[in-house]
């Protein structure tokens, strides 16, 4: 009891000295001994779980409810997305190595790793842009002899009326101005709406992360990133890893489950 009281009084004295929050120094007195900003970051990440949870719930509730195609199995290319998933996973590793470097005081190591993290993030974004572009320009190509054999997807089958007398293959569906009518946009169907919104917001998170990482990279040349202020890196890293784990969920739920043939279709 006396010991506790002594501790309390000591804490109070320290508190009187540590007057207010000093930006960048992590030595201020706090009740729990934990840093304000780090607590804020974790609370934010918990809150962001609800954000992505709501988006994922929307995607799943509308899964298989689209009235017209294209459907996930017409578009997704698991090998390509696996590569971009792998890139994002590896960026998490280089992020953590950047953090480990700055904690050892190695500014050079920090710069190498944080730049490679940002580059991998940009690679991931490039994949995403490519994917969105591909989906928006998706065309149907099939041999009319395949109609009714079960080799065509439901979306392709829906164009069997194109196979009129004298037409042996269908090479894309276009309107009179030559516009492709079989691409996926946010307006096309529920799948397009929910897919682009969910992955788009993830992409926006990645973009913000890349900006943050690059800011730290450039700030390090002005002496802004030091061993004493490794927390600045830690916070960016936490955010970056969070973006990565959200993608782990999206990859499984949207991509792998999305083209899984055993699932009920619309």
């Amino acid at each position: 009891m006396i010991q506790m009281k002594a501790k309390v009084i000591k804490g109070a004295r320290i508190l009187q000295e540590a007057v207010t929050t000093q930006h960048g120094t992590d030595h201020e007195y706090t009740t729990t001994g934990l840093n304000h900003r780090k607590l804020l970051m974790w609370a934010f990440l918990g809150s962001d779980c609800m954000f992505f949870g709501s988006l994922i719930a929307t995607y799943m509730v509308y899964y298989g409810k689209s009235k017209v195609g294209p459907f996930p199995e017409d578009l997704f290319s698991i090998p390509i997305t696996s590569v971009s998933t792998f890139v994002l996973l590896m960026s998490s590793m280089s992020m953590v190595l950047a953090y480990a470097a700055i904690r050892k005081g190695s500014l050079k190591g920090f710069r190498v790793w944080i730049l490679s993290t940002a580059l991998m993030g940009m690679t991931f974004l490039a994949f995403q842009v490519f994917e969105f572009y591909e989906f928006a320009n998706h065309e149907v190509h099939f041999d009319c002899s395949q109609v009714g054999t079960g080799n065509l997807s439901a979306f392709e089958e829906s164009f069997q009326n194109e196979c009129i007398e004298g037409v042996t293959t269908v090479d894309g569906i276009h309107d009179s101005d030559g516009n492709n009518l079989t691409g996926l946009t946010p307006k096309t169907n529920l799948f397009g709406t929910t897919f682009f919104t969910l992955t788009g917001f993830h992409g926006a998170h990645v973009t913000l992360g890349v900006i943050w990482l690059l800011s730290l990279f450039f700030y390090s040349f002005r002496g802004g990133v030091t061993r004493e202020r490794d927390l600045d890196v830690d916070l960016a890293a936490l955010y970056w890893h969070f973006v990565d784990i959200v993608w782990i969920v999206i990859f499984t739920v949207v991509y792998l489950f999305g083209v899984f043939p055993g699932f009920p279709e619309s």
Partner: protein
Amino acid sequence: MAQNEDMSTETHLGSENHSDHPTPLTYFKVAMILSIITAIEVGIFYVEDLSYGIIPILTILSVMKFALVIMFYMHLRYDNRLFSTLFLTGLALAFLVVIALLALFQFFTPS
């Protein structure tokens, strides 16, 4: 002034202990495990005999990846439990709300 110095070291006691963080080698190992799990996920995906069995397998594998990242890369394993509490509260609630919404929309009811 000397007294001051003394106290600032005191305050440091409470903050996170920096010594027990994992080494870069650990980070590398974790990355390898993550890669292998991803490879298994993609590989399993092409095994058609599994049918619906793919769902629990993929779910478990993803949860493992998720857990590895938050435990090691986000060093929740080495950090104060308050951080885990804050994050896992949001995560658990998000999970439950998603499940509840899916149930309410008959996602789990075979049509």
